[in-house]
């Protein structure tokens, strides 16, 4: 013990600074500042977690998601993919936070300075997609398409996405016979040529109904421009030289250390939206252990209702697979939603590890959250009266808390204010800054 410390009872000035001031570095993921001044964190573990962020519009859901994503990327150094940005909210995330009030809060409690998230914007190509080149001048972005082979191998699945009532039925066997030839096509005319010559009934007499059915279906598919047959600017696969790696664009971007953000604003209203989501989800999920051995990957969905509404949706099945088997494949799941009660059963079927509930006035939703996390009546009441940026954190495992030299774990619901994002945020950062 130093002389200063032994004389500390006489006054604080007698203690050496290095004995007096202790620096605590948090390895867990800070999410809330609790009412008692403690810092509530998601514990860093060897297994991935699944988390829901529920709350009404404008309560702070996406702010918390932004914070969690940069924490996962920077602090835990895991792979992160944002799989639906409907309102182009993530454009600002690749810039450091500009709101002084938020930055002061983070500096005060966590000694953190603003930092951008390295987002690369990924646009699924369609016949209506128009990129705002001016807006993207300083950003990294890429247009992507579905691999032709993938579509040919699951033709019924994708054709149903273009035309809901389409049933390939027994005619599917004729297309399967041509799948190898089709997979080698490089232009729409080549596809048509293969179909015309390969399908039975080229004499114009027999099998005419089946021919027309298949040709029309392919025509619809090509019209949507979601396939990789013509445009050299649109990529179904990308390649990284070091380390040598060829895969779907999202996985390659993660391998290169970026956070891919699938901008899906153009897909709103498209019938095959679900098929595109499920392709990318499956592509990351199925190959995660081979593409990223020993690494964790998190998929984030902002407003889950825009991705899937019922269990029948192909995207719901794909997300459900991640929710159920994500632990084995090292793929975690985070989603934000205004409609907690409308999350498809296949997605919610697996137990959620964490849920962050912002202010909600819908009793049905609050009751549903209460059932899933065994909440007492008092806590459910609190959800109705939460202020902006205030949240109640719930867990089926546990949270880690830090306060001064103390560190403890607890599994009870906790109320607090969210830590603000380190990366900038759409609108909010701008508005505050202008003030």
């Amino acid at each position: 013990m130093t002389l200063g410390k032994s004389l500390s009872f006489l006054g604080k000035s007698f203690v050496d600074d290095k004995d007096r001031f202790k620096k605590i570095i948090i390895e867990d993921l800070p999410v809330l500042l609790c009412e008692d001044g403690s810092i509530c964190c998601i514990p860093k573990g060897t297994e991935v977690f699944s988390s829901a962020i529920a709350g009404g519009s404008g309560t702070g859901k996406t702010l918390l998601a932004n914070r969690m994503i940069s924490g996962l990327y920077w602090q835990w150094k895991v792979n992160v993919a944002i799989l639906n940005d409907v309102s182009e909210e993530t454009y600002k995330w690749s810039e450091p936070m500009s709101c002084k009030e938020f930055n002061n809060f983070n500096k005060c409690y966590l000694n953190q300075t603003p930092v951008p998230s390295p987002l690369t914007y990924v646009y699924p190509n369609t016949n209506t997609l128009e990129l705002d080149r001016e807006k993207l001048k300083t950003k990294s972005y890429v247009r992507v398409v579905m691999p032709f082979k993938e579509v040919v191998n699951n033709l019924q699945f994708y054709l149903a996405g273009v035309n809901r009532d389409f049933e390939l039925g027994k005619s599917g066997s004729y297309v399967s016979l041509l799948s190898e030839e089709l997979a080698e096509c490089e232009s729409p005319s080549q596809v048509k040529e293969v179909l015309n010559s390969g399908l039975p009934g080229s004499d114009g007499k027999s099998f005419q109904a089946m021919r027309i059915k298949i040709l029309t279906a392919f025509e619809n598919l090509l019209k949507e421009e979601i396939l990789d047959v013509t445009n050299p600017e649109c990529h179904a696969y990308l390649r990284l030289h070091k380390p040598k790696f060829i895969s779907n664009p999202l996985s390659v971007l993660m391998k290169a250390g970026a956070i891919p953000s699938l901008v899906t604003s153009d897909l709103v209203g498209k019938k095959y939206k679900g098929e595109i989501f499920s392709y990318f989800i499956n592509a990351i999920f199925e190959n995660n252990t081979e593409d990223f051995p020993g690494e964790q990957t998190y998929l984030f969905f902002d407003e889950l209702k825009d991705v899937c509404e019922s269990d029948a949706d192909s995207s719901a099945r794909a997300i459900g697979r991640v929710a159920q088997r994500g632990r084995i494949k090292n793929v975690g799941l985070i989603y934000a939603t205004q409609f907690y009660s409308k999350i498809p059963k296949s997605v919610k079927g697996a137990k959620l590890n964490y849920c962050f509930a912002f202010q909600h006035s819908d009793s049905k939703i609050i009751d549903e959250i209460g059932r899933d996390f065994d909440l007492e009546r008092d806590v459910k009441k609190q959800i109705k009266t939460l202020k902006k940026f205030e949240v109640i954190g719930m867990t089926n495992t546990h949270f880690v808390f830090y306060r001064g030299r103390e560190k403890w774990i607890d599994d009870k619901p906790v109320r607090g204010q969210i830590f603000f994002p380190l990366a900038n945020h759409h609108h909010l950062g701008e508005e505050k800054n202008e003030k």
Partner: protein
Amino acid sequence: MDNLPTNVSDIMDLEGNKINSFKESFIEVEYLKPNFIFDELGKKERPSDIKVLQHPYGVEDVGAKVNIIAVKIDVKSAWAKRQRYVYYIKPTNQRIEKGATVKKVIPINHQIEIDIANRKIRLAGPHIHPNKKETDWIYL
């Protein structure tokens, strides 16, 4: 602090062409892990050693210089039976509010608690606060 490890500009298409829309714009970024500094002495407290006094004589003996202040309240504002005053304590060097009086004795059913180990003092009793039985601690 960490430097960002992105190398998106190295990404190519399957023919080996660079993707022109990829920009390397995060090279200079530095990240600070969340951390905080706490004052080792700031919250250091010894195990409590509380001495209860029913009479103000002993207060000065431990070096405490506090007054017991009484503020008269009307019957409607009272929360206890036959309550006429609200009591609290204040260091002797602080001003007393208008209308408040200094009590020379400890009010009936009240007591002064002194934590000798941590050198702090408070007043306890039914006429302190509608929801609390003691005042906050005053550090000596």
